[in-house]
Every structure is written in structure tokens, then in C-alpha cells.
């Protein structure tokens, strides 16, 4: 289901809870599918004793991937033309994340969205933009 330009207004938002109580197993799953086996994401011993972090943490690309599901649920299948993000805070096992898209403009058949993902404490973990074709 694609969005209708005539029904979109600047400032409209769509948000979804994209993960609740993130499990280490999901991070392992993402390592396996993406091919990024950096021990920082799956190896608690290495990450705490060698790298100096309190625990393993999620791949930024896992957060971008989960946020991408919110976007495609909103704009429709195959409609995205651009999607870019900055990773602003780490995502840890146990985090609950909410992703939001906010309409910034609708012009020439393209909706521009501001994209933000926040954790349970309200900290922004990802911020970026997306563009999609609308009808």
C-alpha cells in the first residue's frame, strides 16, 4: 500500500516499536545474515575484557535494518528511493526501540521523511532521512 500525496501533510508522523528487550540472540542472528562477525557484537568476553565496553552491543546496521522495516511498512514495498542514517548512540541488549518517520515535504511525487529511533530512556540512537515515491 503506497502513500497518497494528497493525504500527506508536513509534520505527519508514523511510529512503531521495532524491538522490545533486544536479545543477544537477535544480534547473533544479524551477524550471521549480514556477515559482520565483529566480536564486539557477539563475544561478551572479548568485548568486556579486551575492547573495554560494558557488554556486547548491536550492529548499527541492525538498528538501521529494524528501522527500515518501520519505513517500508509506512511507505510501501519497493517505494524507497533514499535512506540514510547516523548512529548517535550504541544499542545494548535489553533495549526497547521506537522508530519514527516524520513528513518534511511532499513534492513531485516524492515524500521526504526525517527518521529517528530512540531507546527506552528517550535517547536518540539513530537519526537520518528517507525519501520515497508516493502516488
Amino acid at each position, binding site marked *: 500500500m503506497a502513500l497518497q500525496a494528497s493525504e500527506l501533510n508536513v509534520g505527519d508522523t508514523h511510529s512503531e516499536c521495532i524491538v522490545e528487550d533486544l536479545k543477544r540472540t537477535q544480534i547473533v542472528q544479524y551477524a550471521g*545474515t549480514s*556477515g559482520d562477525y565483529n*566480536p564486539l557484537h557477539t563475544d561478551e*568476553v572479548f568485548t568486556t575484557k579486551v575492547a573495554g565496553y560494558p557488554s556486547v552491543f548491536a550492529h548499527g546496521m541492525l538498528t538501521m535494518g529494524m528501522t527500515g*522495516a518501520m519505513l517500508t511498512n509506512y511507505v510501501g514495498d519497493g517505494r524507497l528511493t*533514499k535512506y540514510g542514517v547516523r548512529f548517535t548512540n550504541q544499542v545494548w541488549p535489553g533495549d526497547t526501540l521506537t522508530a519514527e518517520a516524520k513528513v518534511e515535504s511532499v513534492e513531485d511525487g516524492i515524500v521526504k521523511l526525517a527518521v529517528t529511533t530512540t531507546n527506552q530512556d528517550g535517547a536518540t540512537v539513530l537519526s537520518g532521512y528517507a525519501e520515497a515515491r508516493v502516488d
Partner: protein
Amino acid sequence: MAVDKFPVEASHILMFARSVGDKNEIYYDADYAAGTEPGSIIAPPTFAQASAQFDPDYFLRPKIGEPWFGSGKEPTGIKRESGGGGGGGGGGGLHAEQHFEYHRHLKPGDVLTAETKPGKTWEKESKRAGKLVFSESVTEYRDQNGELVITAKGVGVRTERPVDS
């Protein structure tokens, strides 16, 4: 990074979608997908990142018969030179930004090549992790017909010490 052959396969798309918690049927059910606007299974928006699986030199994948820096008997399998930049974690730093431009969406049966060119680098001082060194790379994904399908830009950052959380 250079990838000569990245075959986009339905089972890989299914597993990738599961791993990012995306239950949209267009990623695994061909019959359902036939009735959608794209008309077939497509890949989720960040799937191109999995090209790492097909990069023979990708340094964040253990290679058969080679040392690996993750833990085994010891916390790391590789003795690191002292004084070699502490934080950011062994694996060549952290991911700071990622951008995708879709010229079309990937589908099973595509066979891609990926060519990466280094972009600019810059430095910044931060309270949470000391000196940060950013470096950009641009990857062009082309399909079996040589058509550009996705342009990706990544920014990595090496930190002076682990990031305070």
C-alpha cells in the same frame, strides 16, 4: 572492498529479514509477493550490506586456518601491539553513518558486483571517546547487466578510547 559476485538469493533474503525483525511477507512468500506492486520477492532496504558475505577479504569474518581476534581460550586470539589505539574495539572501529540510494530494489536472481572507493577523511575531538577519525567510502552495486542498482556511502570512525555510554 571489491565483490565480484554477490548472488541475491531468496533464502538469504528470508534469513536477513528475520534477523532485522521484519515480518513482511514480500521477503519470503513468492505467491504473496506476486500480488504486490513490485510483483516478486524483493530484498529489504539494508540488504546490500550483506555483500560482506561475498567479499573474500572481509576482515570481520573468521577465515579458515587464520587467527581470529575474538575470544577462545584467551579473551582474544591475537596479541595486539602495545600502544595501538585503544578504543573502538579491535575490529577497525565503529560504524558512524550509512546511506543508500536505490535505483531499483534487489530481487532473487540478481547477481551483483560491488566496487568501493575511499572518500574523504576528517577528525573531530569528542568528550565521550577522545579523538575521532572518520573515513568515508562509496560503494556502487551493479547488476548482471552492468546497471547501477544501489549507491551506498558508509562512514566509519576510529575512536581514541571506548565510547562512554
